[in-house]
């Protein structure tokens, strides 16, 4: 029983250790803004005129941690073409330290949001993620409208989407609406 109860803590510790071998100070850690759906919409609306990629992730989603570097990379590679990346976490309260260390380690110098409902069902409902799984990616056009969604639930019999398909979509959207 003791070992079982310690497992989640062990998992968090392992994750934290894996993502931040050199502990970042609190000042280094990027700020994570807790939002509801209205706060999220307001944050996205600020980037009108840009193409926005939102990476939905969580510390409990090891696949998200593995893929996060691609999001950071897109933010750099396509910056001049008017691309902005934003991270949106479905982590729960009390995870700010570990999440901040992860983002600092990944040099994720962009806006970070976190759902006020954490990993709860409300998060998946509010942001319309029918698969119940992360990673999940939404891409918004320069007019602020949602143009592309990547979710495991799109086609349950097909292999999961990868960073390759997401990048292809980013390129296509940028090409279709060049920066003025």
């Amino acid at each position, binding site marked *: *029983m003791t*070992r*079982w*109860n310690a*497992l*989640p803590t062990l*998992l968090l510790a*392992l*994750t934290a250790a*894996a*993502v931040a071998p050199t502990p970042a100070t609190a000042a280094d850690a990027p700020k994570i803004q807790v939002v509801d759906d209205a706060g999220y919409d307001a944050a996205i609306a600020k980037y009108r005129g840009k193409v926005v990629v939102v990476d939905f992730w969580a*510390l*409990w*989603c*090891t*696949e998200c*941690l*593995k893929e996060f570097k691609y999001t950071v990379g897109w933010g750099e590679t396509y910056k001049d073409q008017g691309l902005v990346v934003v991270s949106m976490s479905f982590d*729960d309260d009390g995870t700010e330290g570990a999440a901040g260390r992860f983002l600092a380690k990944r040099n994720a110098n962009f806006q970070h949001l976190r759902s006020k409902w*954490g*990993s*709860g*069902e409300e998060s*998946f*409902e509010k942001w319309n993620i*029918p*698969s*119940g*799984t*992360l*990673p999940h990616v939404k891409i918004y056009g320069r007019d602020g409208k949602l143009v592309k969604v990547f979710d*495991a*639930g799109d086609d*349950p*019999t*097909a*292999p*999961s989407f990868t960073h390759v398909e997401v990048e292809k979509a980013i390129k296509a959207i940028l090409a279709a609406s060049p920066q003025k």
Partner: protein
Amino acid sequence: MSVRRSGPGIRLAALLLLLPSLVVAENRSKFNAKLAPGDPAPRFEKLPGADGETHGLADYKEAKVVVVCFASTLCGVVDLYEPRLAEFAAKYKKQGVQVVAISCERRGPSTEIPGGAGEVTTPEKSGELARIRERVKEHQLPFDYLYDGSQATGRAYGALATPTLFVLDGKRRIVYLGPFDDSIPVDGVERHYVRDAVEAVLAGKSPQKTEALARGCRIDYAETSKPADSGKDSP
């Protein structure tokens, strides 16, 4: 001759009449594209288990309730739920409740993120069955933990996330599908969906909550694995 001619015609007419109801029968679940509460549970058979034996749904015919949990050894959310599921399985075993975990994991371990999944490979190369055996032994898990490298079971049950659970009654109909409870962090749990569904069946009642959105890691279905065609079969 006339009888023979009308036979297929009548069958066709009956089929056409049935079609709308078959169409309506699709997507009756808010959360699952393949199954809905009330549906017969898809059969599975001859899946290798951690105990070195093979198991199928029909093997549990003595059980009053079967709880199927789609799992993976490479999912942090399954790790968080494992103690809860183990405690539940041990507690309800005496009351005739059989818990069966099934992994359809086709990935090997990640080289970057400890405890995470890497790239999709073959069932053999993924090493999942060996990890299942290790885990059951190390954590002394009191339930059957099976491996389905074909992923047919996961497809037949429409499972997208791990962990996703299905509570099957005595007739092996699905009476609940979704997460084990309402909170991934154990200290936030307020509603025990699986436990309540199982208690209802044991009391001869229908569960009040029949489905919820299972949240967790995605099951990475391989392109090569064939869709299951035994989705409507019942043991």
